[in-house]
C-alpha cells in the first residue's frame, strides 16, 4: 500500500463536492429534517416504545454507506479503468490494485465518518441514546461498510463504462435503501417482510445495528448473513473485475 496514493485519493475525494455532500452530509441532513417533525419525536408503541427519530439514526448510518459504496465508488473505479488510469499505474512499480484499495479506504472512511456524524447529531440534537452495546455496534458497522464496498466492487466489476456503472448502481441503490429501512424502518415492517429483508445485506445490517443500539449483542444470524454476503460479493468482484 502506497501512502502517497492514499493521500492523493483523499485529496481528490475532497475535491468532489457532490460525493462529499451525499455521503457525509445528506444522511445527517435527512435525520435533522425528520427530527424537526414534532410527531417523530413522540414515543410509539409499534416501534417498541422508541421514537421515529430513534429508529432513523441507524438508517442514516447505513445511508452514507449505501451512497458511498453503491453510487460513488463504482463510478470512480469504473472511470479509472475506462480512462486508462489503472493502465498507466500498471507500468509503475505500484500496482493498480493499490489504487483500488485506496479508493475503498477513502469511501469506507467517508462512510464511517458519516455514520459518526449521524450518531453525534442524533445524540446532541435529538437526544437519541448512543448505542448501548458499543462493541456490537462497531462490529455491525464495520461489517456493513465492508458489505457496501464489496457490493460496489461487484457493480464496477460488471460495468464496462461509467454509464453502465451508474445504471447498475441505481438499480441496486433503491432496493438497498429500502432494506436499510429508509422508507419503512425494519422495526415497523410486517414480520414476514422484516424476515425476508433480514437476508439482504443492508436489511441484516439494519437489524444488527438496531439490536446493538438497544443494548443487545447483535444476533449471530444477522452477522452471519453479513459475513456471507461479504465473502460472496468479494469473491464475485475479484473473479469478474477486469483491469482494462
Amino acid at each position: 500500500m502506497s501512502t502517497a496514493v492514499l493521500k492523493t485519493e483523499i485529496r481528490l475525494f475532497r475535491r468532489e463536492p457532490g460525493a462529499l455532500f451525499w455521503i457525509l452530509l445528506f444522511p445527517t441532513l435527512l435525520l435533522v429534517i425528520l427530527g424537526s417533525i414534532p410527531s417523530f419525536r413522540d414515543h410509539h408503541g409499534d416501534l417498541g416504545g422508541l421514537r421515529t427519530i430513534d429508529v432513523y439514526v441507524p438508517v442514516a448510518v447505513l445511508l452514507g454507506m449505501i451512497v458511498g459504496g453503491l453510487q460513488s465508488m463504482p463510478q470512480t473505479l469504473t472511470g479509472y479503468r475506462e480512462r486508462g488510469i489503472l493502465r498507466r499505474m500498471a507500468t509503475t512499480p505500484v500496482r493498480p490494485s493499490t489504487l483500488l484499495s485506496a479508493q475503498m479506504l477513502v469511501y469506507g472512511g467517508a462512510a464511517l465518518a458519516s455514520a459518526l456524524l449521524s450518531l453525534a447529531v442524533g445524540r446532541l440534537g435529538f437526544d437519541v441514546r448512543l448505542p448501548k452495546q458499543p462493541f456490537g455496534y462497531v462490529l455491525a458497522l464495520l461489517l456493513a461498510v465492508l458489505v457496501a464496498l464489496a457490493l460496489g466492487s461487484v457493480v464496477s466489476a460488471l460495468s464496462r463504462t461509467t454509464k453502465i456503472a451508474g445504471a447498475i448502481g441505481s438499480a441496486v441503490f433503491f432496493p438497498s435503501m429500502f432494506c436499510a429501512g429508509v422508507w419503512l424502518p425494519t422495526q415497523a415492517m410486517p414480520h414476514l417482510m422484516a424476515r425476508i429483508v433480514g437476508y439482504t445485506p443492508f436489511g441484516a445490517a439494519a437489524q444488527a445495528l438496531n439490536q446493538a443500539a438497544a443494548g443487545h449483542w447483535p444476533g449471530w444470524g444477522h452477522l452471519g448473513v453479513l459475513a456471507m454476503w461479504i465473502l460472496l460479493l468479494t469473491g464475485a468482484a475479484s473473479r469478474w473485475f477486469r483491469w482494462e
Partner: protein
Amino acid sequence: MPVIEVTELRKSYDGRPVVDGVSFAVEEGEIFGILGPNGAGKTTTVECVEGLRVPDAGHVRVTGLDPVADHARVARVLGAQLQESELQAKLTVREALELYASFYPSPLDWAPLAERLGLTAKLTTRFAKLSGGQKQRLFIALALIGNPRVVVLDELTTGLDPRARRDTWQLIEDVRAGGVTVLLVTHFMEEAQRLCDRIAVIDKGRVAALDTPAGLIRRSAGATVISFTPSAPLDDRDLNALPALASIEHKDGRITLSGTDETVNAVITLLARHRITAHQLRVVDATLDDAFLDLTKEATA
C-alpha cells in the same frame, strides 16, 4: 547484453494473430524505432515489453528480466508513455509529478523536468483542464520521472504542435545522451528518420525490415527518384526496359521514375541516344516515407 530483447513474440486477440513472431534487440543507449501502419501490432508489441500484456508465445526480456514475472523490478527501470491513458481529472500537474516520483527509488527532481517540458506555468492546473499537447508533455515527464534506464514512448508527439514536437525530439536526444535507452513507436516518418539509430518496420504482426533509416531507404526498391520533362515523347517500352526500375509515373508530360543509381545512368544514356533533352531534371534520394510504403506494400503482396 541487449537492454530489450524480444524473441519470436506472438499475441492473438480472439484467435486473430496481432503479433506473429516479432524478434528484435535494443542495445544500451540506442534510440530504437518501431514503425508500421495502423493495426500492425506495434502497440501490442511494446505493451508486452512494458509487462501490460502476457505474450502467447515467445519471450521478452528487459535488462534480462521478464516484464510479467518480474514486474516490479522491470517497472523500476522502465518508464512508459502510453498511447491512450489519462490521469485523475482533478489531479494537478504538480501532484501528478510528485505522486509518480514517489513510486520510484531514486526519481528525478520534478521541478527541472517540468521546466524542460514547459509545464512550469501549469503546475497548479488540473489534468482535465490541460490541452492535448500539455497532457502529452505531462505523460512524457511521467515516463522520465523515475530516472529509468529504458523509456518506451508510444506515439510520442501525437497532438503536439510542430514547435513542441521539435522541442520533444531535442529532449529525447538529450535523454539518450544521458545514457537512457529509448524504444519509440511512431508512424511519423520525419520523427523516425531524425531520432532513430535503427528501425524495425512492423507490418501485419511481423518485422518487415530492420535497419538504420539510411539502410532502409537504400534497400527499398525505389531508393532513387528521377524526374524530368522530356523534350520529345519517349517510348514506354524503352522506359520499362530500364534496369532496376521500381516504378514509373506520367503526369502532365513529366516522367517520374524510381530505381537505383543504375537506373539513373541508364536513363541518361537512353536520353542521349534519342537526343532528347531532359528539362528540369531532378535526381533525389527517396525518403523514409517512400521506403516505408515500399516495404509495407511488399509485405501485403
